């Protein structure tokens, strides 16, 4: 991302509203330098945990309340050929985010520009978002007495200021490609797959997962082999919405049945009073 895609695509005065922020993350380009991990911490001034050298280089071993993105290292061997894959973890900024849909207080919201952001002052700490997120992204400040949810903000603050996200800016190899349009990134992803037969596992993770996300992943290996959960295609909020939207009907049925049975049973009771 040499130039500033956001500024390029917005005309003066219109602000950044027209943007639909998106990452295309191409693991085949990633060199595992962890620049994204560190720059994210730097931009967000996130703290650290005391770690130990592990059996692999993945450190911190998982996303946590201080780590919005990390690189996971995967070694594998096939027919004597070793390969080493680096996978970037982080929020997918789902088009229809489960996390935001389940939040009872709209602490998590999908912004018009694409980022799913968190408004700490509203959060009650129910952690339903954590349960609901199919990618296990939201993290909690367990150690604190007044904990917050933490997750990647898609650098919403930077986007609004006309800058691309810190991780994408830092990425030396273009692995994290920022665009102001999911469609553009999707087209680019498709192009890369078709122009490089055999290079990619033929799947754009995020195109359909959880109903589609703003972050798209490409990889040489099937994504579940580099730590990305198998996630179904359904729009998760639809699953609950189907129920919620049925509530008026339930109300109608229950009221009708309740009143009806009250009326009927009352009459019945009155008719054969001797029964009592």
């Amino acid at each position, binding site marked *: 991302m040499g130039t500033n895609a956001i500024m390029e695509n917005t005309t003066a005065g219109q602000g950044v509203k027209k943007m639909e922020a998106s990452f295309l993350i191409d693991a085949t380009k990633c060199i595992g330098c962890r620049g994204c991990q560190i720059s994210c911490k730097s931009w967000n001034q996130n703290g650290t945990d005391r770690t130990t050298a592990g059996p692999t280089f993945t450190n911190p071993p998982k996303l946590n309340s201080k780590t919005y993105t990390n690189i996971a290292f995967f070694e594998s061997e096939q027919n004597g050929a070793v390969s080493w894959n680096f996978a970037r973890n982080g929020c997918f900024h789902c088009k229809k985010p489960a996390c935001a849909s389940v939040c009872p207080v709209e602490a998590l919201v999908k912004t018009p520009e694409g980022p799913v952001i968190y408004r700490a002052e509203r959060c009650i700490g129910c952690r339903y978002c954590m349960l609901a997120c199919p990618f*296990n992204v939201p993290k909690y400040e367990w150690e604190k007495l007044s*904990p917050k949810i933490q997750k990647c903000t898609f650098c919403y603050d930077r986007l609004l200021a006309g800058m691309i996200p810190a991780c994408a800016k830092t990425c030396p190899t273009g692995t994290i490609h920022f665009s102001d349009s999911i469609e553009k990134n999707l087209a680019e992803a498709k192009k890369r797959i078709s122009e490089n037969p055999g290079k990619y596992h033929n799947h754009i993770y995020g195109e359909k997962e959880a109903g589609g996300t703003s972050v798209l992943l490409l990889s040489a290996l099937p994504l579940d082999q580099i730590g990305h959960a198998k996630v179904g295609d359904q729009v998760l909020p639809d699953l609950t919405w189907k129920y919620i939207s049925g509530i008026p009907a339930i109300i109608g049925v229950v009221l009708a049945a309740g009143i009806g049975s*009250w009326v009927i049973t009352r009459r019945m009771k009155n008719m054969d009073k001797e029964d009592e």
Partner: protein
Amino acid sequence: MSTERHEIKMFTPMTLGLLILIIAGAVSVYKRMTLGLGATTNLQDDFPWGFWIGFDVLGGVAMAAGGFVIASAVYLFNMKKYKPIARPAILTAFLGYLLAASGIFLDIGQPFRIWHPMVMWQVHSIMFIVAIHVVIYTTVLAMESSPMFFERIGLKGVQRFVEKIMMPIALFGTLLSTLHQSSLGAVYLIVPDKLHPLWYSSLLPFSFLVSAIMMGLSMVSFESILSSKFFKHQANVGILSGLARGSMVAIGFYFVLKIFVLLKGPGIGAAFAGTMEARLYLLEMAVGVIVPLILLLIPAMRNSTGSIFLVNCLVIVGVVINRMNVAIFGLLRHAHERGASYFPTTNEFMVTLFLVALGIFLFKFACKYFNVLSYEEVKQ
């Protein structure tokens, strides 16, 4: 005023036990409130909801279902026969909800913002629906239980007025409960990839509702038998076998529903796959559904207090297992895949015990000082 009430002794060894649990539990609650969730529970990023949600909230609310089941029977279906147990059932529900709400208060990271959902509406959120329901329904239950309070303080007029409008209140309560019980199932609709297929299904709200009705009936029946034992009055076998018949229908329906869900979902094979989940599923089904159903299908069993009591216990335990399966065991596999695991801390257990003991204690307290159990007698 009933004389019977005075036979309820406050300071029995059981009460003492309850008090000890309450005090010990209060320490755990204090720890939770001063040290935070991380320090006192085994909750973690890969397992954000644990025992409190599984037992206190899901289990507790299901147990409280007796309230609306009996209320609707009495006030909507005009089954006056069950009026004697209406007060204890509704009181149980009220206490149950208060305690479930306390459970939520302790479970959420920002307890003092528990009111936020009331003002920050998010209609897409099941959690919002649940929260709104808990609040309104607890209010309804308070109203439903208020007559005995007014009775106690001698405001007969008010008591009579409330009793007069009981039908719409009960209707509203039933509506809320139906929604609420099913909503708790709907909470898990959002995790199709995480919850084990033995439990995940789009019919989760419905199965939660039906199992709550089962549970409610058993709970009421269970309480009647227990209180008749403790408070030494005669259990009404008619009421009990009536409840048993109701249970039979509910369980039968639930059984068919569960089998349908199983067939539509992962298939019969999944239940016999030998995994931890499969075993827990079979346990849940055997304890809560199949054995009680078989027992209830035998007419003699339906009419014996002893066997009804057994069925009640089985159903209660079975449904609790079901709730724990959905909330904990069914999600463990996903946690394990991510290298995590979960088992509650002593502190978590103690907080739950605190809530349960407090509930029982308050119930007993109410029985002593209010006309909970002897309502009919007083009237007659």
